[in-house]
């Protein structure tokens, strides 16, 4: 028993000694942001040089550098909002995929729904007009037939039958 305890103690001391003397592997305090994290922000930005190409899809050298900036800022602990603002400060509002709602930019948000509503209203109005016109026409035709007397209808039917016989 004593021998067993001595062995266990020796093993424990050895492990403690080894762990203290061997160098520790340093772990990174700030892990490198992944491509997905970088692209999640890059998707919200447009290439300042190429037209209408989102930064996550742009393959130019300049775009690679800009994505590098996003990666660096994320690693430094910048938030998404701070990174977007940084790009706006550098390259202007046009770099944002969604223009900020201020000044003339409001038109981008107001004009399409307004145009849609105006179009829908015009369509509805025209539809009502057509329907009203059709209803009037049907009523007119009904009145036309009912205003004729029975002998007139019989004469009409007789003419129709004659024409059909002659075909």
């Amino acid at each position: 028993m004593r021998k067993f305890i001595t062995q266990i103690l020796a093993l424990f001391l050895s492990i403690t000694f080894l762990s203290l003397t061997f160098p520790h592997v340093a772990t990174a305090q700030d892990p490198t942001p992944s491509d997905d994290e970088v692209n999640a922000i890059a998707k919200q930005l447009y290439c300042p040089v190429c037209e209408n190409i989102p930064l996550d899809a742009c393959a130019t050298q300049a775009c690679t550098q800009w994505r590098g900036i996003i990666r660096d800022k994320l690693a430094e602990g910048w938030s998404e909002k701070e990174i977007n603002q940084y790009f706006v400060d550098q390259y202007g509002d046009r770099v944002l995929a969604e223009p900020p709602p201020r000044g003339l930019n409001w038109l981008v948000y107001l004009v399409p729904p307004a145009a849609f509503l105006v179009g829908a209203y015009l369509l509805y109005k025209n539809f009502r007009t057509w329907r009203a016109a059709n209803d009037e026409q049907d009523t007119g035709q009904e009145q036309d037939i009912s205003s004729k007397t029975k002998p007139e209808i019989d004469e009409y039917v007789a003419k129709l039958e004659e024409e059909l016989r002659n075909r």
Partner: protein
Amino acid sequence: MKKILIWGGLAALLLLVAIGLNRAQQGQIGVGELAPDFTLTAFDGEEYRLADYKGKVVVVNFWASWCVTCKPEAWDLESAWRNYQGDVIFLGVDYVDTEKEAKAYLEETDVTYPNGPDKRTQISQAYRVDGVPETFIIDKSGKIAHVQIGPFSSFEEIINIIDPLYK
């Protein structure tokens, strides 16, 4: 009243579209026009305002580190800057670039005249720059004397343009 509002709104929208299209069609700022004033904050923090150089010939060069044809031109512009020894002002405007790459580019090309980033692309928008390199040479009265779209072909070409303005 409703019709007035609808037609008025449409007219206002068309006017805005016309203004936007007109601006897009304008093209670069032309020879003989007054050079738009600007303040350039160089990479070293110094500020350079164009209006302060009235009475001197000023060369405003738009470049970027990702621009392949800008590099050979940079050497020629630097040679010209050294040739005039401060009698002609050279200002380099870094167009939609990253600071790290821009500074590396300046070191590689050994450019010593003031260079700075075009924050929010305000300067390039004022000069209606479409791409890089583009150079605007401003005479002593503050008017555009020469517009160079694309790189200068040689040091001599630059000198031949500046000399008549400078003397």
